[in-house]
């Protein structure tokens, strides 16, 4: 294992300490239990948006805390759901009296831990709503499994719900917007290489020099199919077709196109993918009116990308454009 770390056990806390040192104007960090929260939390009368998940996907979630996005994020160990005490303390720290929305990706661990935390918070008199994101179209037989995984749409939902919360909308409204975003977003990813969890020290899976995994999960979970490596255009075609066919995106629809790096793929290659994606959308009469290109939901150093398409209406466009100021995403400020 070749990594820029000191001790394996210190990977998460030392990363948090660095982030705290870099962005004291935006965030604060609480240790034991670990969570990152807005520097000005709690914001009185505003719904607080809280998320969390295993570490190793940065900037999601801890790098997306700040004005216009998350109020708090709970980092677990690498690729491991955080624990209920983290979520409970984070929820209490950011509750401004208007309730707290938990955005939870659809993984059994995340759901069970957030469920326990929501029970505990409610027992302490805090109103909590939970919305589960499950946008990964790679999972085909979702009726017979844990269901679709929460991936790229989660980042978009956090941005949009954060903006809705800033407008002082009610907990129910913010949760409804979150459900709408999840319902209108679809994603699929692929891997060119594996990744190495620091505590394990060796790659999560083996992938030959001339192979790729289509439909990979963000923890290296296998996807739809392992196949011989293809060109960027062919890969984009496979991913985008699966995404476009899943949600009946139709001619005339406006979408946000999100091309994401799994961590090891450079932005220059993401633009090659985006170029092909625009051609494909154009051919189907779908208008890309917003985009996000870069590494936002990663899988450590895995090379590969994911494509997310989110259908937009006027409300979602406005919320997307609203100012956001976090370590990982910033505009309008």
């Amino acid at each position, binding site marked *: 294992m070749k990594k820029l770390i000191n001790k394996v056990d210190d990977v998460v806390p030392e990363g948090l300490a660095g982030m705290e040192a870099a962005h004291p104007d935006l965030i604060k960090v609480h240790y034991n239990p670990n969570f990152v929260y807005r520097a000005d939390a709690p914001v009185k009368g505003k719904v607080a948006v809280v998320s969390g998940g295993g570490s190793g996907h940065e900037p999601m979630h801890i790098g997306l805390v700040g004005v216009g996005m998350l109020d708090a994020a709970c980092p677990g160990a690498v690729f491991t759901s955080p624990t209920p*005490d983290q979520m409970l303390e984070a929820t209490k720290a950011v509750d401004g009296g208007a309730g707290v929305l938990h955005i939870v990706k659809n993984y059994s661990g995340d759901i069970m831990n957030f469920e326990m935390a929501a029970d505990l918070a409610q027992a302490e008199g805090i109103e909590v709503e939970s919305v589960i994101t499950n946008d990964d179209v790679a999972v085909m037989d979702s009726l017979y499994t*844990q269901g679709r995984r929460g991936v790229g749409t989660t980042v978009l939902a956090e941005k949009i719900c954060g903006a809705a919360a800033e407008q002082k909308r009610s907990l129910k409204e913010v949760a409804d917007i979150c459900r709408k975003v999840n319902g209108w977003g679809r994603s699929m990813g692929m891997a060119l290489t594996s990744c190495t969890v620091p505590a394990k020290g060796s790659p999560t899976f083996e992938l030959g020099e001339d192979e790729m995994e289509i439909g990979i999960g963000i923890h290296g979970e296998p996807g739809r199919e392992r196949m011989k490596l293809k060109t960027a255009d062919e890969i984009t075609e496979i991913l985008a077709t699966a995404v476009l066919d899943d949600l009946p995106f139709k001619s005339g629809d406006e979408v946000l196109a999100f091309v994401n790096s799994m961590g090891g793929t450079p932005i220059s290659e993401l633009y090659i993918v985006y170029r092909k994606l625009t051609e494909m959308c154009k051919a189907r009469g779908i208008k890309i009116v917003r985009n996000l290109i870069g590494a936002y939901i990663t899988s450590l150093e895995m090379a590969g990308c994911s494509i997310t398409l989110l259908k937009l209406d006027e409300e979602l466009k406005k919320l997307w454009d609203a100012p956001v100021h976090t370590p990982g995403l910033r505009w309008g400020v």
Partner: protein
Amino acid sequence: MPMTKDDVIRCLGTIAVVLKENKEYLTQLDAAIGDADHGINMDRGFTAVMDKLPGVEDKDIGTILKTAGMALVSTVGGAGGPLYGTFFMRAGTAVPNKYELTNGDLVALFEAALDGVVQRGRANLRDKTMVDAITPAVDELRKAAAEGVDTVEALRRATIAAEEGMKGTIPMKALKGRASYLGERSIGHQDPGATSSYLIFKAFLDTVSTHT
């Protein structure tokens, strides 16, 4: 001979040792069909349990087990944290204020633990999860208690049943948890959660057989 409070403390100690010894093995099983962290997480959790035990070692068995469960919930993470945390918390709730456990108490303890796991994880038998190891073990404990055999024999039968249940997960297709995403590709792999559950029953057996 009933199990004493000190036996229960020794059991938890044995579990901690066994999980540390099997950390790499459980993680390897998890790497094949999950996310390669089960052994690491369980070891971290039981290390925390061992840290908490000195504070409650004079208390009753219910309190000791609940304390272990809470330590697991707040340190393990993943799916294992809420599941094993609930397992030990419910186990403790089933035997309040007791300093000794009859075979009947053991049945009540493990039945409550299993119910908690099923509720929290919403898994059914044959979904390829820890439920597949725990359920047959609890069935054997119940039968053994009805027959009136001693604790060592009851735990021996339960452990054999857990081991068979664990091995029985190999040909199953996973329907819950991260392994479910593999579909057919999960067939042929032993479930890591069922494996850690078997190791826990075996730790109970090994502790009790060496001390009676």
